């Protein structure tokens, strides 16, 4: 809101604009399809024209893989909804594309780009966001300060394209999410033990998902079942029965 107060009709029109903006943001939000998450996000889903940060909870390759799959599931659903492609920018390409396909991202839906360093990765992401023809843009970086995330946020808003920043650990003991950022939501993902099966074998993977910060809402944390081959998450069966209690626990954890 601007500090200069005008006459009545001016104020009214400004208010109408902001309400329309809010409605637009809610309309372009991308829901997870899981009531336990969507209900606690301010826009009822991820804002479709904003920056979101996803980081592994620990500097282990497993948590990085979980964070990657979490992001892959989101963009897979976006790509299917938009009927377009996703740009995936990394500085060191160690993704295994068959694994991504099992999260719902077939080869025809992703364009990979390899930047020489974090700066180039961010520049490539910005170009992709401003083009406005992509379903989403993902970048893997180690270092992204306030300026970089602000630029990405503006580019995402200009191109009406969601941007996902997959952070990687730079050094032991410093969580990448401890840096300041202009991201709308910041997530922290960790592997969680899967539910034991009655027979020998590994059950559906589970993640401990923690929303560290969101604009206009409260943080929360909960355990979800990993995305399936369409990129959809699910709540564990036992937690689904206790949805009301989980909300309270999440609010306390925040």
């Amino acid at each position, binding site marked *: 809101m601007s500090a200069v107060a005008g006459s009545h009709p001016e104020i009214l029109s400004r208010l109408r604009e902001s309400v329309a903006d809010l409605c637009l943001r809610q309309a372009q939000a991308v829901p997870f399809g899981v009531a336990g998450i969507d209900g606690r996000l301010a826009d009822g889903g991820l804002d479709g024209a904003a920056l979101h940060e996803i980081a592994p909870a620990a500097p282990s390759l497993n948590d*990085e893989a979980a964070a990657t*799959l979490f992001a892959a599931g989101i963009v897979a659903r976006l790509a299917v909804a938009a009927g377009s492609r996703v740009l995936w920018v990394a500085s060191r390409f160690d993704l295994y*594309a068959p694994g991504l396909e099992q999260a719902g991202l077939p080869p025809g839906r992703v364009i990979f780009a390899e930047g020489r360093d974090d700066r180039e990765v961010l520049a490539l992401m910005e170009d992709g966001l401003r083009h406005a023809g992509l379903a989403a843009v993902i970048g893997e970086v180690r270092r992204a300060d306030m300026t970089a995330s602000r630029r990405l946020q503006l580019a995402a808003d200009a191109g009406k394209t969601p941007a996902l920043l997959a952070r990687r650990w730079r050094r032991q003991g410093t969580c990448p999410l401890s840096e300041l950022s202009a991201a709308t939501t910041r997530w922290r993902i960790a592997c969680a033990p899967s539910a034991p099966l009655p027979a020998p074998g590994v059950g559906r993977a589970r993640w401990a998902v923690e929303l560290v910060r969101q604009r206009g809402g409260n943080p929360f944390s909960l355990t979800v079942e990993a995305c399936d081959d369409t990129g959809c998450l699910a709540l564990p069966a036992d937690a689904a029965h206790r949805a009301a209690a989980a909300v309270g626990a999440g609010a306390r954890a925040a």
Partner: protein
Amino acid sequence: MLPTERLRRLEPARAQPEPRAAPSLPVDDDPGACSVPRGGHWRPGARWARSDRAAGDRAAVAAGAAALPLHQQPTMRELGRRSEAAEHPFKGRAHAPLAAPAAPLPIAPAAAPLILAAPVGNRQLIAAACPAALALGLAPGMAVTQARALVPGLDIRPADPAADRAVLDRLALHAVRHWTPTAAVSGDDGIWLDLTGVAHLHGGEERFCRRVIGLCRRLRLTARIAVAGTPGAAHALARFGGQPVVRIAGGKEAQALSPLPLASLRVPPDILSAASRFGLERVGDLLPMPRGPLARRLGLPALRRLDQALGRVAEPIVPVVPEEVPVATLRLLEPIGTAEAIEQVIRDLLALLVEQLREGGAGARALVLALERVDGSEQRLPIGTSRATRDAAHLARLFHLRIERIDPGSGIETMRLAATRTEPLGATALGTTLAGDDGPADLSTLVDQLAGRAGAEALFTVGAVESDVPERATARHGPLDAPPGWPAWTRPVRLLRRPEPLSNVLALLPDQPPRRFTWRGQAHAVVAGDGPERIHGEWWRRDGEVWAVRDYFRVEDDSGARFWLFRRGDGVDAATGDLSWYMHGMFG
């Protein structure tokens, strides 16, 4: 002959071993140093026993043997020196090499006679025949069934006139670019070159003919050339002259053509048959005849062909025009050096170039901007696009990314923009956009932009390769491709570059996942595991993989981390692997 030679060019030179002449060993007729001659009779003073002749022969044989390559040199025994012990034929021989060394020279293939069949109505007729087939009596126009009955083992292939024509077109284009500005394809098997005023550039007509024949020989084509004052005469002499190079002076056409058959005049077959009824066989038969009755009997076309061949009627050659590269050039009044000015000039150049491209119905795939500086040096700035485009704004954006690489020096005075690679590009339909229903946006502009920033090889998609070995199952494709996916075996999302060995592995053989393992110095206790998924080595790639087996397991440790491990070997047969364990990837 061109169609058959074109096909022969396509097939690789078949390396057939040349029938090698056996090393000519000296006949063991010479008694040499043997004290008792053949037959045992001793006759002093006999001619064969004279020492000088025997010594000369022996020296000649020894010299001949020494001149042979080492492996062909006859042994002592073969040279007739029986005092030496003969070598055992199978003793101490090196084994023959497994792969014979490649033949150093391409050997002309001794292939079966080749004919090309083309359907005429309901019948298959010979359209062309190679020299070997012609020598066997097969001629174009004969029925293929008859040829097959005459010559067993005949190589019969379908004729492809379009491909023959393409070869000729390319040759004519080469001629226009390198030899003479006026060149055209003539008939199904020839090229007209107008040498007027250009022969001296190639060192005279004779030298030029030699060079053309040499070029065609390198292309594995047989060329016959005639140089004459009129196209008609050259056409006739090249096809019916009977020599590889025929050159006649101007005004001697009538003399040179008179012994040739009438068919050399490019007249249709009905006129030929009419002429044969009148007893006119050769061109020379037409020359003394009055023109009026000749025209009445054979028709005007025959007369016109004759006049064209003799130079009485002009016959211009319609030359092949090579397509030109669209170029826009701007010479600047004053040298420029600032980025803004350069960008403005680039925009002006693009406007000019796009106009040319639109007229030609083409889109640019590669552009080169050449900047000439005041000091005379030239700088070149190439860009490429992933799809043909003539969108000036898009191209300007691509150049904008590269402007910082321009070094203006003391100023740029000429800028030239050329579309070095173009593709046909029609008009774009705007219908869907006008209706407000945009399809998926065109990503090619984005790909160009990103490639301009990070390099063309930095953008890719990853598609499947038909291999079960995980490291080999992926391959990079172009950024706008949609390659096929993989089968639905569970695969991790991150794969280690190289599998890392595990230590302290505790597992039940043969097919249980490990109970615990240590990786990167950290111990993991496994609570659940899936597997094994057995992947066999690809024996066709390496000898080491013939028996190799990897058993992959998906395990979860007590902290919830999920890994992809494998064991080398199936746990039963020692040849399949040494039972060592490796970490290969991480599931989320």
